[in-house]
């Protein structure tokens, strides 16, 4: 029971910070950035490279590594910053040109989907399809598992899951402070409320859009690296499943709603963790069953506000 609870919270907290990346962009642009799953993967690879690890047998960069290796926490932060910059580039290439032309949001959505496919294929071309694992020293001297039970009735919890939960919660707290307590955060909220009015009031919306893409990329990369730390970077495609799960989370939480994304992430993680053993292979379906059930009762999501139709 305790084991399932912590498993659920660990994976749920990663869903939450991953989905926050979607939420930030959606709240500003009202568009789902489908490239977010690919940025999640890119971030995980960037962290891997920065730890000084080398690439495997396939791909253009086979056998290559940086001449230096950073400790995992530093590599995670730097990798996330670089992935944030990738997010900015994506905005400039795939979103900004369409936005300036006033293109339909569907076009922007397809454009971001295209970027996702391109990024994943470029990754495979560069580093091959093999899985990569962060150095075992990533967590320093911490043991691989901690026994929360007794010697006779052990309840082992993998240390990495406790670390993931803790880091994710710190990130959520920092992001909440940034959005609610800083000038830029308030400006972001103003733009998400009404971009035109915010612009008339002198807020530089273009700059804030870049900020939101940077933050979104940063959060995606942190999620990707934390998942990679737990289960290895399982190849260029490993962000795709998270991409879909993240969509379920933001819809469940209420599109564009930050606390909603956190609650929904944890809820889906817990729901998956409590799937009975014999049905555990079907747990991916659980996220969407939960989503379906909630949407029947609350179409605006758990914490989202109902849209009022103004005639």
């Amino acid at each position, binding site marked *: 029971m305790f084991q399932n609870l912590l498993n659920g919270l660990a994976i749920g907290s990663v869903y939450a910070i991953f989905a926050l990346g979607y939420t930030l962009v959606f709240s500003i642009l009202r568009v789902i950035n489908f490239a977010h799953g690919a940025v999640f993967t890119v971030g995980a690879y960037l962290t891997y490279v920065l730890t000084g*690890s080398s690439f495997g047998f396939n791909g253009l960069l086979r056998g290559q590594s940086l001449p230096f290796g950073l400790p995992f926490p530093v590599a995670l932060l730097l990798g996330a910053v670089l992935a944030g910059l990738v997010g900015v580039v994506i905005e400039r290439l795939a979103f900004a040109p369409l936005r300036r032309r006033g293109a339909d949001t569907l076009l922007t959505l397809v*454009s971001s989907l295209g970027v996702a496919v391109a990024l994943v294929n470029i990754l495979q071309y560069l580093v091959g399809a*093999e899985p*990569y694992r962060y150095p075992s020293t990533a967590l320093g001297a911490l043991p691989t598992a901690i026994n929360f039970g007794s010697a006779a009735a052990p309840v082992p919890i993998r240390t990495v899951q406790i670390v993931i939960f803790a880091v994710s919660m710190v990130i959520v707290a920092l992001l909440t402070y940034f959005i609610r307590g800083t000038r830029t955060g308030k400006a972001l909220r103003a733009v998400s409320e009404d971009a035109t009015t915010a612009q008339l009031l002198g807020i530089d919306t273009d700059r804030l859009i870049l900020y939101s893409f940077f933050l979104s990329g940063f959060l995606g990369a942190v999620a990707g690296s934390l998942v990679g730390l737990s289960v290895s970077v399982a190849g260029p495609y490993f962000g795709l499943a998270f991409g879909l799960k993240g969509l379920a989370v933001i819809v469940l939480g209420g599109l564009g709603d930050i606390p909603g994304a956190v609650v929904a992430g944890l809820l889906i993680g817990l729901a998956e963790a409590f799937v009975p053993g014999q049905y555990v292979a079907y747990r991916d379906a659980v996220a969407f069953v939960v989503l379906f059930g909630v949407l029947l009762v609350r179409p605006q999501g758990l914490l989202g506000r109902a849209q009022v139709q103004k005639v």
Partner: protein
Amino acid sequence: MRRGTVGICLLLAALLAACGAPSPTDSAAGGSEDATEAATSEEATSEEASEEGSDAGESESTAELSGEPIPLGVAVAQTGNVALLGQEQVIGAEIAEAFFNERGGVNGRPIDVLLQDTAGDEAGASNAFNTLINQNEVVGIVGPTLSQQAFAASPIADRAGVPVLGPSNTAAGIPEIGDYVARVSAPVSVVAPNAVEVALEQDPEIESVSVAFAQNDAFSTSETGTFQETVTELGLTLNPVQTFQTTDTDFTSQASTIISQNPQLVIISGLAADGGNLVRQLRELGYTGLIIGGNGLNTANVFTVCGLLCDGVIIAQAYSPELDSDINAEFVEAYTAGQDRNPPQFSAQAFAGVQVFVEALIAVDDEQGLDSLELPALRTALNEAILAGEYDTPLGQISFTEEGEVNQEQFYVAQIEMEDEQTGSFTFVR
């Protein structure tokens, strides 16, 4: 405005070029380009290797070959979640192409291995087969990577009368797909039980066995059936079976349940990333007994997933780099010239697949003359020649039953031995 339009067009063009999902048209172009590039680089490697042995090797072989190249299709997963295995097969097939062309091809005519990406699903495999058959007009196909894909794509070749050799399809029922479908990969029912026997040799106290398998993969489902039958036949206790998906990454639930079953042996049928992760999470949660990995874990790519925790995993093998034969020594030499490790089973099987085609083509040429046959007749004659022949391959001596099932004499069992977090090797224990 115009700049924006041009930008979007460029982006879309780049996406189409980069996209791994093969539509018949784009995969034909992309695939053959890849093939040419890859073949060029691999030939360069092989040339370097042969230069060490013979200075004149390359110039001689170029002079010997003449006539139109014979197109042979190789349809394996170069992208997608099984690209790990497919990439190893590509290397094996390209080595075979360079190797046999250097030795005169098919009585002086070169073979041209056309790679076509199947990605990791059934639709991709069907597209790749259709392209190879209808556009590239190949004489035969080595592929696809997964049994699951073979059940979808191989019937297409069978209906078109194009011989297919499965390089790594080990599920039950593959040769039965049709008259034109055979395989060089021995079925799991023959290979897998060897691993259980070795586990019992290492720990005669084994009584309780837990089994986990990827339920969304036909091969893993077939393989676990064999493992479970073997466990039951040996009178061991089979605990309630655990399932997962090949796309899963978090196995905490399965690992916790397995540990609570208190087994002395765990048998995992999955692919490298998921299977390796399950091994890792089992060990991290404190499981200390023996682990058997299925054929999907039979790749060096698993080392990077479970690192030092891979140590000791037992895996049945249809190939050993240590097999003492001339063709295997040459294959290992060619492989290690380009790769910093011994060849894995998937590369050896792909090599053997191409080899069987080349030798069967030579047999057809000797008997009837390739030029005298129209393509449909050539394909039929080739299929008959494949099934009638005996081949000395890196896998050992192989032949085929009338149905297309491979007869292979030797099987092996290896145990993973890790040197550090990233590198390890398969140490043969049988």
